[in-house]
């Protein structure tokens, strides 16, 4: 009987712990995904900053370090794609279609914005 009760209580405890572990993992995943998206947005903002200074800037960035992760930015015509990777390896992606003003400093307007699409 003792063995039975102890086994039963142990199983319950394990189940509870497992549930808590899952909850923690969900929160951790959310933090990492948000971090990755924020990293991608940082890459986009960096690119917009370059374009404000030079409307013809198309160099982009490759694995530029940021906050323990990195971002890669492609500038293709008037579409900027920024892919951010956080320190946990999660990936976020933002893409913006832009219009660039005609005189310096070049004011930039985002016409279309896509997140993780």
């Amino acid at each position: 009987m003792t063995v039975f009760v102890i086994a039963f209580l142990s199983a319950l405890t394990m189940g509870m712990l497992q549930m808590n572990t899952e909850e923690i993992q969900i929160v951790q995943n959310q933090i990492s995904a948000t971090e990755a998206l924020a990293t991608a947005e940082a890459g986009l903002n960096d690119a917009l900053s370059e374009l404000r200074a030079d409307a013809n800037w198309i160099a982009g960035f490759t694995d530029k370090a940021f906050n323990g992760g990195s971002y890669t930015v492609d500038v293709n015509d008037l579409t900027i794609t920024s892919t951010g990777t956080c320190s946990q390896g999660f990936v976020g992606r933002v893409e913006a279609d832009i219009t660039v003003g005609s005189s310096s400093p070049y004011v930039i307007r985002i016409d279309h914005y896509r997140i993780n699409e």
Partner: protein
Amino acid sequence: MPKIPKVKAWIVRLEMMYENTIKFLYREHRASGKGLTLVEIIIALAMMGIVFAAIVPLFGQIRNSWDSKQAAAETLQNGRILLDHLNRTLSKAVRITAVSDSSQTIGYIEFEDNDANNLRYNVNGTTDYVEFGYAGELYDLAGPASQLQFTCYDACDLDTPITDVNSIRFVKVETTLTNPTAMGKDKTLIASAYLRTNGNNQAGITKGTPFEYNISLGKNPAVVQIDSTHFLCAYSGPGDDGLTVVLTVDTGTWDISSQTAHEFDATNAQNPALSQIDSTHYLCVYSGPGDDGWAVVLTVNTGTWDITSETPFEYDGEMGATPALAKIDDSHYLCVYSDKFTDGQAVVLTVNTSTWDITKETPLEYDTDNASIPALAKIDGSHYLCVYSDKFSDGQAVVLTVNTSTWDITREIPLEYDTTNGETPAVLQIDTTHFLCVYDGPGKNGWAVVLTINTGDWSISKETAFEYDGTSGLTPDLAQIDPNDYLCAYVGPASAGYAAILTVDPDDWTITNGTTFEYESIVATTPNLTQIDPNNYLCAYTSIDNDGWSVVLQLPNGQVKP
């Protein structure tokens, strides 16, 4: 769980009693060599029952705890989905169209995304679920929720909540997801989103304080820019005399003031049109005395802002109605107008930049049937697009070619761009071969179309026309915001003054428009637009009692700065 140790102690005690009893009975029976009696078995079963009776409530509590933890995980997952969704969709919103007050705990928000969809979040009053979707076609997203509270801010001040939907650029959402289990705790989560996307066309247009530049009469104004804050305005004043005035725009307050008006024609001056010659001289053409075609050079003193006029020149002694002007070079100007038969005439006016005398070259009757209220746009140094209304009030367009040696004019192949109706057109260049034309089209509504010029044979083709105002769209005028966006002011429903931003897609030349803005609710006819800077436009118009008014139309959220 705090009751577990107590219950466990009881279980252990009962268990020991049970085991001692069994051991005792076992020893007794082994000694006597007899089996268990019925009473003994009943006692044993009763004790077992007591043990299980103590354990079973524990099962219930454990079950409740399990359910509550599961529900908490599910609530958190729901919250994560909701936050991600809110952040993603609101970041892509072009503008907020309606939002509940920031004090409302069960709120809603409506917005337009960058694909021009009208979307909405709210809480379903029956299921308490947060719903999302096209306005009127909502579906459950996450929940149940006991709170969905929206607080909005503008682009600069994230401390002071605002309610003006046209200024909202940042949205904070606070939501509480309820845990449905008895022991479960509710989860309150906060998300926020910055509206990254912003077409000028979708940003709300606002206006500065209107200014009455002539309290007696001010019809058919024409405006050109002198410098960043001064604008020359020519109009028909009291007695239909020709008046001109410098309007000054305060770029801090966007208030307008005027200098002393100058009468450039004391007899008659209808429908003037202006073109800049140099920083102080402007060519003005108008329907003058006898309704004939007249032209005069206006000189602006940029110190005192006084205006003087040179000797007027009668370029058509029979009639010169509703003229339009385009600059060829500093000395030559193409003028199109309606003659005494309402036919279309074009003539090059030559300005002597020493004496400011005006002469004319050989005119061309570019439409022998009828050509009312023409408008001009320059294609290149020798080609000009002329749009006008023909004898059936249909929309016509033709390229006029100017020989820059002889100043003779020839016309190319015309195009009837609207076979139903095309009156009072205005036209602006998009690129070297494309032009945006707005006009009073079918149903007297506001229409726009892109006209494409074939620079080989100067023929014209048209793209798909777009009805930007399905109620009314009279005497429109255009100003360019950027290569894709154009501000259009027009006479809307009930003769009120309206403005809309038209966006041209350079891939397929389709046109779309954002929300229209009523800048003058009483009456505003013959608006004329001039750009002050990319976000501010001076609009001169005729309002109640035919007085002359002006106002700055603003695109406050027109540019998103990264």
